[in-house]
């Protein structure tokens, strides 16, 4: 037997495979046994009910996608009444993703979802901060610090802070999030991108721009996950472009304790379940008995710190 258990702060997951927020919902249970997953991460909710962005909300770009779904949300009451009971049928930790436009709104929502049945809160700080100049919290260490401190003081549940690739200060943001009380980092969200139809000359997303996800995002998110794992002591959860077990292994070697899988589930709804069994096979074949034995085994001993933490390509 291979031991796939992994520890994210105080939370022990039976395996490191979980969905990425916004790419998973109750409906996947129609296709696969979601009880096998290491955790259930829900679509980001806001406190109030709100609509998402105009359509088209998704377009394809060379084997990956852009999305501008936004955060359509049924609000926190609906979440507590309907969503939590659904997931509590399963013996799988429920991770609730939240978002707001000010630090105080974040804290209030965080407090509202600190209820029995929720195992951890994922703080999606890739949204505009209207207290500031409208730039996403996750772009800057200062905004990240304020929001994480506020949510920290409003809940005693584990807090997973989800970073964004749309920053030049990955390591600084990661460090302040840790310092402000995050229990884990999720690395990362989608990268701002654009696509134009050359015939109509119209942007291919209703919202003009959107977030890149899928295989093209992987090298970027992997680089960030590596930098974060090198700089913080709290666990890092890798996310971005995973579609096979080899992608997962690569993230684990880079230093993450678990992974989230998003876009690949749209193409093959059984991706997470398949990767789970492939992971067990892979570790067995490599004679690795314990998942922990592969985590952070990247051979980078001769690389100077400056290179590890660099923010631009040479």
């Amino acid at each position, binding site marked *: 037997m291979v031991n796939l258990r992994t520890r994210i702060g105080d939370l022990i997951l039976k395996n490191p495979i979980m969905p990425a927020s916004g790419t998973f919902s109750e409906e996947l249970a129609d296709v696969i046994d979601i009880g096998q997953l290491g955790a259930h991460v829900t679509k980001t909710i806001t406190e109030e009910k709100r609509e998402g962005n105009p359509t088209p909300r998704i377009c394809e770009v060379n084997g990956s996608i852009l999305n501008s*779904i936004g955060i359509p949300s049924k609000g926190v009451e609906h979440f507590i009444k309907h969503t939590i009971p659904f997931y509590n049928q399963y013996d799988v930790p429920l991770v609730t993703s939240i978002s707001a436009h000010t630090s105080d709104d974040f804290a209030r929502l965080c407090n509202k979802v600190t209820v029995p049945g929720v195992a951890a809160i994922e703080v999606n700080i890739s949204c505009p901060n209207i207290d500031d100049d409208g730039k996403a919290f996750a772009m800057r260490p200062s905004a990240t610090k304020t929001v994480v401190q506020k949510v920290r003081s409003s809940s005693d549940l584990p807090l997973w802070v989800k970073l964004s690739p749309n920053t030049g200060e990955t390591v600084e943001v990661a460090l302040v999030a840790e310092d402000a009380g995050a229990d884990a980092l999720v690395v990362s969200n989608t990268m701002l991108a654009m696509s134009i139809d050359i015939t109509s000359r119209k942007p291919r997303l209703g919202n003009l721009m959107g977030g890149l996800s899928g295989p093209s995002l992987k090298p970027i998110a992997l680089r960030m996950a590596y930098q974060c794992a090198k700089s913080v002591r709290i666990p890092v959860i890798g996310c971005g472009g995973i579609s096979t077990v080899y992608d997962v292994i690569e993230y684990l070697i880079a230093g993450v304790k678990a992974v989230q899988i998003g876009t690949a589930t749209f*193409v093959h709804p059984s991706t997470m379940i*398949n990767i789970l069994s492939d992971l067990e096979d892979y570790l067995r074949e490599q004679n690795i008995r314990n998942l922990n034995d592969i985590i952070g085994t990247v051979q980078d001993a001769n690389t100077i710190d400056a290179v590890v933490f660099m923010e631009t390509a040479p």
Partner: protein
Amino acid sequence: MSIQTADNVKRNDQPARSVFQVEAIIKRNSPINKEYHLLNVDAPQSILRCKPGQFFHILCPARAAHQPYLRRPMSIFGYSLEKGELQFLYKVTGNGTRALTYLKKNDVVNLLGPLGIPFTIKPNWVNLLILARGVGLATLAPLAQEANRLERNLITICSARNSDVLMSDNHFRKLGAEVITVTDTEGTSKMENVRHIIEDRICGDGIDAMYTCGSNRMLQLLQGIGTKYAIPGQVALEQQMACGLGMCQCCVRSFYCGKKIVQKRVCRDGPVFGLQEAMAW
């Protein structure tokens, strides 16, 4: 070790899954006219417990020239549990559908489904009307099959640019429907003419329910007639999709819900909706 790129999900001892990811073997995939192809696959029983109006999310195999990434939604055109057969009628439009055309007999195609809410035929709906144009005929064809099975009277108005692309009229006739064809070239497909045809029927034997798909003008026409004569109906709608399962919120459209306008997912809350609930676009 062998990497599982696709399915073989373990399904034993689980609560009944209703949506399946299967590899189906192609029996036939060929053009039926300049624009449309008919895809016929050998399908396992699990996915054949499907209903008219539902769809499958098809993984179109990538080629050097055409590399679709996401699946493409296709309505069920025909299905037979006895023959173990499933059919799709598709219009070649872009990368995904072009990639589909390369599939040959005995190749496999990965299907996810059946998905979505089907059409309903209520027990007291005896005289049915289908109004369809273009690829909308594909979506409505299995409804004709079901109407035939339930021994209902069916009138189908098939609309097309010209008689060359009027592909499904014979198909509907074989299913026992009375078929009226209208075309742009003959000038018979104008909405006013179609309205007359329908109103004649309403005044004659009467119509208990109306169904349509795919065209804004036809939807508006039936909504008007439905309100005027208090006739219920349903419409199958399309929207670009990513997951097809209801997870991503990509496929929303606006709908009337009483006095309010709400957003619903076409893949999960539809693709079949109440005639009056749908918003013309």
